[in-house]
């Protein structure tokens, strides 16, 4: 074998290794969200059943379930399952500070969010629906008496809603914690 051919063989080998590595890498990146058994939804499922509002653990040393949690924020969560009907979410705004609710798919991605600026009469409120439920609801809407509901279509049948409240001072954390636990997620009759 002449030196040129040997070099060509080595280059081919390196290229094949690189191609195999890239293939493995892309496969892993794309498969991780599908096969991840301990994603946010799975961790939340350990806290309580769908429909129940449960407090999220506060960001503190030794609390290893939900990374990047702000210690100044009190948060609660309810999981929803739209297969039995739309879910009405109501969350109270506080005396002061910032409060918000975010709507997440089964995989954790946000599909909608509301802050206390959008609250009416002291509450943030929305109805989570499937696209099919939304079509039925809209078809039955009374044109003379339009609905006041904010309808939020969810890309997935299951998902979760997170409420956050900011505590302006450490001594106000407890009040923020009580505030977020007043969120309700109630299943409504199918339209």
């Amino acid at each position, binding site marked *: 074998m002449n030196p040129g051919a040997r070099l060509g063989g080595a280059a081919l080998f390196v290229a094949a290794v690189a191609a195999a*590595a890239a293939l493995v890498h892309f496969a892993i990146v794309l498969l991780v969200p599908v096969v991840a058994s301990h994603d*946010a939804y799975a961790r939340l499922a350990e806290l309580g059943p769908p429909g129940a509002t449960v407090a999220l653990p506060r960001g503190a040393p030794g609390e290893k379930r939900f990374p990047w*949690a702000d210690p100044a924020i009190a948060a609660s969560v309810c999981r929803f399952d739209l297969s039995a009907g739309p879910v009405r979410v109501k969350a109270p705004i506080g005396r002061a500070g910032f409060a918000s609710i975010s709507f*997440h*798919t089964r995989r954790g991605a946000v599909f909608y969010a509301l802050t206390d600026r959008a609250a009416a009469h002291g509450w943030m409120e929305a109805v989570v629906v499937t696209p099919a439920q939304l079509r039925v609801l809209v078809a039955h809407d009374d044109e003379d008496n339009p609905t006041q509901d904010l309808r939020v279509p969810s890309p997935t049948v299951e998902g979760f809603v997170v409420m956050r409240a900011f505590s302006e001072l450490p001594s106000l954390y407890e009040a923020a914690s009580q505030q977020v636990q007043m969120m309700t997620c109630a299943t409504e009759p199918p339209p």
Partner: protein
Amino acid sequence: MVFKAIAVGAIGLALGVAASGSILVDPPFGGVTIGAWRVAAKAGSIDADPYTRAALARSGEIPLALGEGLELVARVDSSGRALDRRCVYRVGSHTPAARYWTLSLTDAEGFPVDNAAGRYGFRSSEILRDGDGGFSVYVSEVVHSGNWLPIGHVDTFTLALRLYDTPLAATAGAGGIETSSVPTIVREGCA
């Protein structure tokens, strides 16, 4: 030939797995760098890139929605050097526009670090300010006067700046976050 094919497969697999492991802890794409800080442009949204989605599924993080606020993370100082627990850093003196902000310290995975002072972060609503409304937070292992954010018992740490209810987009420059608006992280000295 068969041996070569097996070698290509084995080395490719090892390299592909190795490349995926580290990249999913700190995804390098889908974000922008502003000064010492990185912000994931679409961290929580449905159209996040596959790397961000995979990292989310693995970490269990519940991301902030764009409408709620922005999360900026620094793993380096303003000179680009990795944050070092043996050094003293001054973080200040202003932040991009937001209703509230918090600055907290976590380990590399985003969890608060145990420290004797029990201090994991500062809120904009509790911080001591200087005469012209600016602030300085001192990040160090040993006690520091003023706003002291202890590093605690950890080898590598990160700083997280959260902007709640901000009108800014998660992009750098005009319409987004100007480099001149983010806090600088200045290394003051090392033990």
